[in-house]
């Protein structure tokens, strides 16, 4: 006991009998740092589950999408431009591994341009494809939006993807009696989102000639103001000049505001409720992406996460502490021991 005490005293500043050094705090910090780095070198990658989305994006390219009452980057833009901007935001915001397909809608059908493809690897091609969308791709002037959504749902079901449908909800010709056509599928079988594009105030719809030059706006008599297919409405008998055989809709031409177009939010909400989709009005990228994430189904994928950072941070902390303390404490050497 006394020998040990004497030894300690004799070694003074930490030398033991063997001439070694009693390890000081600097040594232990270095050792922990080295062990931390070695642990980081051999750290395993753990498998975590991440969520990606598979979706078909269908964009309405009918005439009413040419109305300039939407916003793109703060400037007035046509609804189609705003929709393309939104499509770019969705493409950029989806996590890698997600797949996005693209389709267009006119007449009464959603027409698939390409099946869902991985978004990060094929970003430039998909973005270029979205940029190339044009109202001239429309093959007919009709715009049966509800039927288009129904066919889009059938298409998405075949692709095992969710449906994102961008439209202003303007039915042309108007629905008979304002009633939605029946939906054959099962509501909610395909998840997805209706994205409403356009402003709430009725605006004139630009008209183009056969060479694609703008020639003004549609007037009241240019478009069907009432759908006269199928049986006449219940109240037809009260109309002026009604005759059950010769004039079942009354004798006067229908009047209305079908030549003006606004975002038909109520119609789209009703359509969304009928088909089990969500609805959101096209806004900023953040809100749009949040809605897409909320209303599409996640597909779990395995993601490998590196755990090396944890021991490496510990090692870095030790080194920073070691040199930080050394730098902040007095730079003057310890005093020469006297005696």
């Amino acid at each position, binding site marked *: 006991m006394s020998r040990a005490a004497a030894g300690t005293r004799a070694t003074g500043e*930490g030398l033991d009998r063997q001439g070694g050094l009693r390890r000081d705090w600097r040594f232990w910090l*270095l050792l922990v740092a080295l062990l931390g780095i070695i642990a*980081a070198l051999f750290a395993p990658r753990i498998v975590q589950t991440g969520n990606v989305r598979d979706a078909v994006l269908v964009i309405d390219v009918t005439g009413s999408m040419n109305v300039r009452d939407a916003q793109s980057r703060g400037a007035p833009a046509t609804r189609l431009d705003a929709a393309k901007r939104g499509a770019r935001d969705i493409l950029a915001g989806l996590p890698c591994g997600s797949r996005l397909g693209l389709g267009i809608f006119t007449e009464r059908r959603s*027409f698939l*341009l390409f*099946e869902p493809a991985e978004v990060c690897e094929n970003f430039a091609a998909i973005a270029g494809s979205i940029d190339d969308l044009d109202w001239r791709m429309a093959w007919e002037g009709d715009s049966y939006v509800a039927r288009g959504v129904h066919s889009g749902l059938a298409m998405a079901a075949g692709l095992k993807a969710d449906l994102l449908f961008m439209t202003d909800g303007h039915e042309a010709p108007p629905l008979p009696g304002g009633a939605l056509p029946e939906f054959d599928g099962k509501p909610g079988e395909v998840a997805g989102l209706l994205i409403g594009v356009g402003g709430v105030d009725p605006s004139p719809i630009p008209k183009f000639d056969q060479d694609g030059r703008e020639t003004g706006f549609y007037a009241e008599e240019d478009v069907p103001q009432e759908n006269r297919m199928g049986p006449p409405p219940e109240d037809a008998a009260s109309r002026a000049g009604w005759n059950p055989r010769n004039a079942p809709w009354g004798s006067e031409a229908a009047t209305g505001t079908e030549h003006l177009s606004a975002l038909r939010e109520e119609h789209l909400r009703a359509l969304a409720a009928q088909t089990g989709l969500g609805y959101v009005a096209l806004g900023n990228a953040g809100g749009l992406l949040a809605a897409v994430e909320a209303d599409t189904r996640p597909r779990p994928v395995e993601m490998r996460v590196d755990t090396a950072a944890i021991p490496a941070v510990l090692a870095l902390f030790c080194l*920073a502490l070691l*040199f930080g303390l*050394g730098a902040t404490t007095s730079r003057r050497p310890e005093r020469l021991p006297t005696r």
Partner: protein
Amino acid sequence: MNAAGAFWDGLTRGWGVDHPAMLALLLLALLPLVATAFRRRGIASAGLVPDDPLSRVVGVGLRLAGAVAIVALVLGLAGLHRREQSVEREGTGAHLVLLLDRSSSMDNSFADRAPTGDQESKSAAAKRLLAEFVARRPHDRIAVAAFSTSPMPVLPLTDHHEVVDAAIDAIDRPGLAFTDVGRGLALAFSYFAEDTDEASRAVLLVSDGAALIDRRVQEALRDAAARTPVHLYWLFLRSRGAQGIYDAPASGEDSAQANPERHLHLFLQSLGVPYRAFEATSPQAVAQAITEIDRQETRPIRYVERIPRRDLVRPAFLVAALAVALLLAAKLAERQLRPAGRGGVKEGTDAIDLRRAA
């Protein structure tokens, strides 16, 4: 823009980190230059220590080891990697526009009926064979356009064949009503308007019929063909009973209205660009035609090969480990300078070095 920007560009073109904010921690690497891992001891007189260049070098080396350890750790934590590189190589291939007919007649079989049982619709046969064709041509840049009642750009020229496959997969879905070949061709030519590459350019038109081409569209097509030299291939999927492109009917019946396919063929021949038509009446004939096109389009092309990103996190940690191990070894070799008369000190050169280092 300026020299600093150019320098930064040069630095970041090949290399990158996942978390740039972490790089702020690089400032910690200055600490080992002002601090040390060793005990600092005072000595009575500087004259006691002879000037020793070796000791100086070792001292500087140990300080640097500390700095290197911290730099390597921070870079590793920030996710240092070598970016995906693209290397331009020479191969054989072409810039190719696939112009696909999406009219509803493509949904019928070659017997021009709704396909039953083991029969394949024309669009399904085209889809299968085009997918094989694309898979055989890895270096091509391919664009896809569709036409029916109106022309539709589907994909711009791209190297990524996965999305091309996705576009080809979509062609056997129900088609639209009409066949506007003329404007479809105009769209296909327009893909090459901005393509300045010297590669061979080809348009592969796949259709099962033709229609009249508007006179103005004809003129536009002649202009486009004169401006952009392309190779034109027409894969005509001929249904049973349909008129062929080569049979000349009796005089008097040979009008563009009655024989649109034959007259499209004559028109394409008159464009003044290399042109070949393949008339296929069965999936086997389509396969032969596609093999022939594959054989024809084998001129040299410069294509871009991607070398995938390489993570350098582990190598960075390895460097840090070596640097810290060096410091630790030096620390283990540290000897205490003791006042005279205490005895028992085996002071080797190591100790002198370290003292100097400190």
